[in-house]
């Protein structure tokens, strides 16, 4: 907007807000004349101005919430028990801008039926809406399709609010369903086709959905998708009605900009073609995990929807969320949310590869801005997907030479790559005299380049199978390394090609350069580091604090700035006149980037696999042969009830991958060092270890035995001294149950950030250096956190480790005790044994430190502490109390079902809720009890949840 125009808007706004409604309308008629956009701008501002808000008080960042509150639901007087017609409300299941959705039952004489009732908020119901409501509900009620949630009834409740009674669907939103079940691309496409079929059916009945999005498509337990809210958007929105005089049209903005079609954004009439477009967005999202124009402001998004081509799905994949990525299982590409780190970054490329070509084109055809260029119907879209699934040429693809060739190549890639090389060398001389030779040759060279991308993705795909590093994997590891080295040997050739191509790029103009700089995802971070560096300088000059510490901080910031500056200022946009060249450039750039990553000496996959081979080749020698004498001694000592009474004569054999350290003088249990994830820690005189940033894991061999798991509150007159009686016991800790366990290994410490880094190449922790708590800088001796249950499990598997079962955890935590805490019946003094909500946190203004339950405890840390900071439990395990929650393997549920023999593992079908044990730095003392259970979804990542690895005893 030009300054002058804004000035007019401003002037009119201030004049108009002083006027009464009719006066204002006349005034604006007069002042704006034909300039409808000026008028609508002013009217929109007035409307926004008039929304109720709390005025007069000084604003806080929270005031924004109030600004937005107008768009959120007001509290509804409808609650459990309220009757609407023949239905009784049971509970509210969702709430949104238009109202709320309740679960309700029809409890007639004849039958009981569960339904979902949508009650529309008063202020979203105009007279106009009510009229439409009556017209439309009859149409909608006739829609009966297995994939459409049926409209059963509709009415208007006493307060004048209309409500809709719909089939109650228990299911998961489409996107979550695909991600949670890790569906393959094929499975996703097949599911999506059913959605298309439902949309097609509705279109044939002249009903347009208008508000399709994954959250409106629920997939039930049988894998059947059900579309909700068909046509509902039309009833309640005035988007294609004739605007009433004086009414502003801002309300006509689409409800869900992410899924809006260009015609919806422009406020144009909506047709079945809009649903086709939106289906394209949904398909885009379930294939890539992203929306086409994600990460933009709403304003930019509206513009992009109308004007910009979305990034190719295959390109969008590369920018996926760090936690939504790709794994490989039974030969199919799967998108999951459960992995991070270098490997996953690289395996994203596999998905990319699968999307390049047909799927890219199918999605983009659905997303065409101009209606005639889109698929003509949902059915046509569905059929094209069917063609893709059958391996037939798709409509969305013009039948070019290179397309057919690529299609062929994909099927026979290795053979063709070889043939092309031969063809090139022998025929080049002949072809050079043919006029079109250049094109043909270029295409052939391209194909060879593509072949390298395929080889690369193959390697990445295979890499995940090459765990753990044990002798059986040596041959496969060697073969992998040989192929990777061959690929890397061609890196410079590809780079030279890329450079040559870039020399022909269009010039890098200043606006593009500025855009590149500004749009860089790290630009904000760089600025923050610059500011923090300057601030540290001040602290240094102030000379009040430890200069070493400050110097360290300054160095870290300098290093970050030095690392970020070149990245942020690097040229990222290369444009070419010819589409072909652009395409070649992008592919080549991707290939070079991937090969650079692959061959990175530190974190590259190649060096990782080389290290793995090294480990696999030496693990037997290092852990079985070299310490043969130690093993013999350990085996004898453990089997001897005189020396190791706790084991009851247990006979073990030497364990591949572990080295005996000796018997812990305090606990009497044997301890073992796990060399894969770091060096051997030094044992201090008192038997404890000094854990450094390089220390590997130490496992305690936990003896088998029986114990009473869980806790219960005391019954009348019962003594608090009775076993497993605990005034703080929660209902889900009952019933107290007898569990028998085989011996197993459990880590003495929570896994450190350093150890996690060694397996995954990534430190996902929220609190990591240089986070400063009360002058103590967090370092990688602190426990790793922000790891989901799923990720923890797969990552541990790579090291041949696992999560302990819940029973194993509690058994080891109790270490023979039956009291709430292993220190006894009272929590006094618990702060010597672990880090939990205490007064130190209070001093740092952390809220968990200001709770009454924190009073009287002082552990010195606000967030987590380095592992092993406090005293161990009787079996020599550290941080059983607090620090971070520790995931265990079981599904969350009551103790009623029996656990598996030997491990006590409890599995339940159909729950994605898992269990954490041992409380965290921000939970009170009663969360630190041996029987206390925390629960969370398997995908939850939090800054206070970590892991304590376990290992099976090989027998």
């Amino acid at each position, binding site marked *: 907007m030009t300054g002058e125009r804004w000035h007019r808007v401003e002037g009119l706004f201030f004049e108009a807000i002083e006027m009464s409604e009719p006066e204002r309308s006349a005034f604006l008629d007069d002042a704006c004349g034909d300039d409808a956009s000026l008028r609508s701008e002013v009217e929109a501002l007035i409307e926004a*101005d008039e929304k109720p808000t709390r005025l007069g008080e000084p604003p*806080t960042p929270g005031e924004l919430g109030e600004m937005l509150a*107008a768009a959120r639901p007001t509290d509804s007087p409808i609650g459990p028990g309220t009757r609407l017609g023949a239905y009784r409300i049971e509970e509210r*299941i969702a709430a949104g801008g238009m109202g*709320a959705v309740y679960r309700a039952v029809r409890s007639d004489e004849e039958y009981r039926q569960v339904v979902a009732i949508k009650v529309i908020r008063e202020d979203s119901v105009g007279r106009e809406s009510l009229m439409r409501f009556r017209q439309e509900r009859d149409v909608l009620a006739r829609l009966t399709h297995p994939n459409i949630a049926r409209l059963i009834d509709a009415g208007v409740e006493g307060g004048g609010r209309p409500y809709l009674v719909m089939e109650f669907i228990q299911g998961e939103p489409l996107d979550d369903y695909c991600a949670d079940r890790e569906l393959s691309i094929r499975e996703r496409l097949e599911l999506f086709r059913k959605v298309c079929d439902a949309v097609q059916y509705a279109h044939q009945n002249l009903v347009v959905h208008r*508000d399709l999005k994954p959250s409106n498509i629920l997939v039930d337990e049988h894998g059947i998708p059900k579309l909700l809210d068909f046509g509902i958007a039309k009833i309640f929105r005035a988007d294609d009605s004739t605007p009433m005089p004086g009414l502003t049209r801002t309300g006509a903005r689409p409800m869900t900009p992410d899924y809006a079609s260009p015609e919806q954004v422009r406020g144009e009439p909506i047709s079945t073609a809009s649903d086709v477009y939106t289906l394209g967005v949904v398909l885009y999202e379930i294939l890539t995990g992203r929306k086409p124009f994600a990460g933009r402001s709403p304003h930019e998004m509206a513009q992009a929807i109308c004007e910009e081509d979305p990034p190719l799905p295959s390109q969008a994949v590369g920018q996926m969320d760090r936690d939504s990525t790709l794994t490989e299982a039974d030969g199919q590409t799967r998108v999951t949310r459960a992995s991070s780190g270098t490997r996953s970054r690289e395996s994203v490329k596999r998905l990319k590869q699968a999307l390049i070509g047909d799927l890219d084109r199918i999605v983009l055809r659905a997303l065409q801005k101009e209606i005639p260029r889109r698929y003509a119907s949902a059915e046509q879209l569905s059929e094209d997907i069917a063609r893709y699934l059958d391996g037939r040429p798709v409509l969305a693809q013009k039948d070019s030479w290179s397309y057919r060739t690529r299609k062929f190549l994909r099927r026979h890639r290795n053979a063709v790559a070889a043939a092309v090389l031969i063809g090139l060398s022998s025929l080049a001389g002949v072809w050079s005299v043919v006029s079109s030779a250049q094109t043909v040759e270029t295409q052939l060279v391209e194909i060879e380049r593509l072949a390298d991308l395929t080889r690369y993705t193959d390697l990445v795909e295979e890499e995940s199978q090459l765990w753990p590093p044990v002798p059986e994997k040596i041959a496969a590891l060697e073969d992998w390394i040989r192929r990777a080295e061959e690929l890397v040997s061609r890196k410079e050739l590809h780079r030279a090609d890329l450079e040559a191509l870039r020399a022909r790029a269009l010039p890098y103009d200043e606006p593009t350069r500025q855009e590149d700089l500004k749009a860089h995802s790290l630009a904000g971070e760089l600025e923050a580091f610059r500011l923090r560096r300057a601030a540290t300088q001040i602290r240094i000059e102030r000379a009040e604090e430890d200069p070493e510490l400050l110097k360290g901080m300054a160095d870290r910031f300098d290093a970050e700035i030095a690392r970020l500056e070149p990245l942020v200022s690097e040229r990222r946009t290369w444009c070419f006149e010819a589409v072909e060249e652009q395409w070649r450039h992008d592919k080549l750039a991707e290939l070079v980037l991937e090969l650079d990553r692959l061959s990175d000496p530190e974190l590259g996959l190649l060096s990782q696999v080389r290290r793995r081979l090294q480990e696999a080749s030496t693990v037997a020698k290092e852990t079985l042969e070299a310490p043969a004498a130690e093993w013999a001694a350990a085996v004898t000592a453990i089997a001897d009830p005189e020396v190791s009474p706790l084991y009851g004569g247990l006979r073990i054999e030497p364990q591949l991958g572990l080295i005996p350290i000796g018997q812990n003088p305090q606990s009497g249990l044997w301890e073992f060092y796990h060399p894969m994830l770091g060096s051997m820690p030094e044992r201090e005189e008192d038997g404890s270890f000094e854990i450094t940033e390089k220390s590997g894991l130490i496992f305690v061999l936990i003896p088998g035995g029986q114990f009473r798991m869980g806790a219960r509150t005391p019954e009348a007159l019962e003594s608090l001294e009775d076993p497993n009686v605990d005034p703080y016991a929660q209902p889900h800790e009952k019933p107290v149950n007898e569990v028998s366990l085989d011996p197993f290994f459990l880590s003495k410490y929570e896994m450190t950030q350093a150890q996690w880094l060694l397996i995954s190449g990534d430190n996902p922790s929220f609190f990591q250096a240089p986070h400063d708590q009360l002058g103590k800088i967090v370092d990688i001796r602190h426990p790793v956190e922000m790891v989901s249950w799923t990720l923890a499990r797969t990552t541990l598997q790579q090291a041949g480790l696992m999560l302990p079962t819940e029973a194993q955890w509690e058994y080891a935590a109790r270490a023979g005790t039956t009291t709430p805490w292993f220190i006894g019946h009272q929590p006094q003094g618990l702060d010597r044994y672990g880090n939990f909500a205490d007064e130190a946190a209070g001093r740092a203004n952390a809220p*968990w430190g200001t709770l009454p339950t924190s009073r009287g405890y002082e552990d010195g840390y606000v967030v987590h502490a380095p592992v092993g900071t406090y005293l161990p439990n009787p079996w020599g395990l550290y941080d059983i109390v607090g620090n971070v929650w520790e995931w265990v393997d079981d599904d969350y549920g009551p103790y009623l079902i029996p656990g598996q023999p030997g491990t006590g593992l409890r599995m339940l079908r159909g729950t994605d809720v898992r269990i954490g044990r041992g409380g965290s730095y921000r939970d009170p003392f009663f969360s630190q009890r041996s029987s206390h259970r925390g629960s969370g979804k398997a*995908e939850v990542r939090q800054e206070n949840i970590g892991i304590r690895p376990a290992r099976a005893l090989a027998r």
Partner: protein
Amino acid sequence: MDPKITTSVTQLLEKCRGGDEAALEQVLPYVYEELRNRAEGYLGSERKDHTLQPTALVHEAYLRLVRQDQQHWENRKHFLALAAISMRRILINHAEKRAALKRGGKRRRVTLFEAESPFDEQADDLLALDEALKRFEEVDPDKARIVEMRFFAGLTNEEIARSLDVSTRTVERGWRLARAWLRKEIEGSSDESQLADG
């Protein structure tokens, strides 16, 4: 607070008053660091009842950083502007960090261990505001300053007026227009139909 720091901050502010723009930039890190240190405890906190009070932080920082025996109103004026910029960056940085933790920025309530992070909810709002405010800066930079000072530094209209050398009425009117503009921008584009979610 180290008297050397207060002296140098005060001197730098004096220079700003003398029209030295570069001096202003030199003060920024002091203000930023002071506020960041103070804000961190609040921002790391996970509970709703423990909200950050930017107003208190800014005023406290002023008292700590600027020598009170030779107070010049002009010093305070520059200080407040810097404080507003700093608070905005601190809050937005934190919000970005929190938002990045959430998958795809999607609002999803899951069963969490014991406590939730209410900041997550605010983070989206803050980021949306920051985005909208950036756009508004292009439309009307002066009024955008007013919003920055009110929202992020929690200053009163009077303080803003004196800091910007305008009348209180100008601030009030500017605030009203800016608020309407931002509200229109943010609300018009927020996802209003969450009905079927969950």
